[in-house]
């Protein structure tokens, strides 16, 4: 079996985290989450089941909304979107996300684009997956400089959604909203607990010897490298091309 690329591990992990969703929304600049959703759809369809509906935001071709850019949020408010992805310039140990900037607001020393829909979607989408490939202490901080969207809300505040997991280039964490905090669930191949501790600015729960993130089986990998990368190329041609070039190197 050909070597599994790190990004293939991420894509397959996302497909697992999404299992059971009916409708997932992904950003137009998020090829890895989109690939995970497309892989889950392909796996379901291969079993003769119905795969999830995938909304790619900002895409003209894969946009089935007819009520402008407000419709996604209305759709989420109605409970029709089960899963969504959030990144963030900073994410802290309480699941707070900062998409606005580092330093003192409003004159941020580094300004990021802004909160987009996070301050709403984090509250109303049941399965939000925090996804950030870069796993460094500047991203995973003890406390964010600005809360675009809070990880948890006090009792009495309407909250039907929130984070369930944090996936990075080094590992997968589960979010426990009762503590609140993250627990390391698994470590990706090629990384270890000491390295993850070093790269994480917040404290997290973990086993003494955390297990390795599950690798895809041959069938899943074939589906990913075939049909899914074909589907992906329609919306994310550069990413699909790059993955195929890397696979060419692996196979050779």
């Amino acid at each position: 079996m050909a070597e599994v690329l790190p990004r293939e591990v991420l894509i397959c992990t996302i497909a697992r985290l999404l299992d059971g969703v009916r409708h997932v929304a992904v950003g137009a600049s998020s090829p890895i989450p989109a690939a995970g959703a497309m892989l889950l759809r392909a796996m379901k369809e291969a079993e003769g089941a119905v795969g999830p509906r995938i909304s790619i935001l900002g895409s003209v071709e894969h946009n089935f909304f007819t009520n402008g850019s407000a419709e996604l949020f209305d759709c989420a408010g109605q409970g029709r979107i089960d899963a969504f992805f959030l990144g963030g310039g900073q994410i802290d140990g309480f699941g707070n996300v900062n998409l606005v900037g580092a330093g003192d607001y409003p004159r941020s020393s580094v300004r990021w684009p802004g909160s987009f829909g996070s301050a709403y979607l984090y509250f109303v989408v049941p399965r939000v997956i925090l996804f950030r490939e870069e796993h460094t202490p500047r991203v995973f901080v003890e406390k964010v400089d600005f809360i675009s969207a809070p990880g948890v809300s006090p009792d009495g505040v309407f909250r039907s959604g929130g984070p369930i997991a944090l996936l990075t280039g080094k590992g997968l964490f589960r979010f426990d909203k009762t503590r609140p905090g993250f627990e390391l669930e698994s470590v990706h191949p090629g990384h270890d607990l000491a390295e993850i501790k070093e790269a994480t600015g917040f404290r997290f729960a973990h086993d003494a010897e955390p297990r390795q993130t599950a690798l895809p089986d041959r069938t899943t990998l074939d589906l990913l490298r075939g049909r899914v990368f074909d589907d992906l190329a329609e919306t994310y041609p550069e990413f699909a091309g790059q993955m195929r070039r890397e696979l060419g190197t692996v196979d050779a």
Partner: protein
Amino acid sequence: MVLSEPRAMAKHIEPGMRVALPVDYAGVSMAMTRPIIEHGAGNLDLVCVPTGGLQVDQLVGAGLVRTVETSAVSLGEAGGAPRFNAAVKEGAVRLKDATCPAIHAGLMAAQKGSPFMPLRGLIGTDLLRHRDDWRVVDNPLADGGDPIVLIPAIKPDVTIFHVPMADRFGNVWIGRRRELAAMAYASRTVLVTVERIVDENLLADEMSAAGVLPALYVTAVARAPKGAWPYGLWGEYPADSGEIARYAKAARTADGFSAYMGQAQMESA
């Protein structure tokens, strides 16, 4: 409705006005950017519906902007918005950071003539903490508790966007970009640039009528072929990512921005 041209339309903008502009992919009237800058009315309060990009960055870079109300400003794949980010760092623009559905909610309130619209989410965010115009009340229909945020109506003085076509009666084809209608309903003045002006009445056919913003809401229309460039226009042409990247690079410095904006070629070749 008045059939106009971009330079004449820019004269509707007066200093201190609140100006609503659409998201990158909905139909940005880049053809109006240069005329607005030449016209020079400053102290503008921009409302990005719900996010901003190139046009916002250029108006900020030209020094015409007092406030930016937005859910985000970026150049997409070309990275951060350089003049906006510099202005934020210098404290040269006042920020009203929002979240996408809050902008839509504010426009929806204005559309209905209501003072506000309630919106879930937001509680516990620093967005809410920094917005003294947003209010939290307990849901009056619940048995107690259940705090919810009220977003005041957003009533822009001017809305500006670009779409494929208008008819000679001033009806404007917005297709399924319904946020353009929401902006128009909420605004006193609506300035529209179009790829082409057609002879037949767009309201005469039910198929096209469903995607029409009626002339009732439209102040002036001007023909501006490739008027969204270097952004793309739905159903017409894709974005020119090379040009957007060229701008992103040039505008890293104030001098580079001035040089870019000073170039004669500001339209698609």
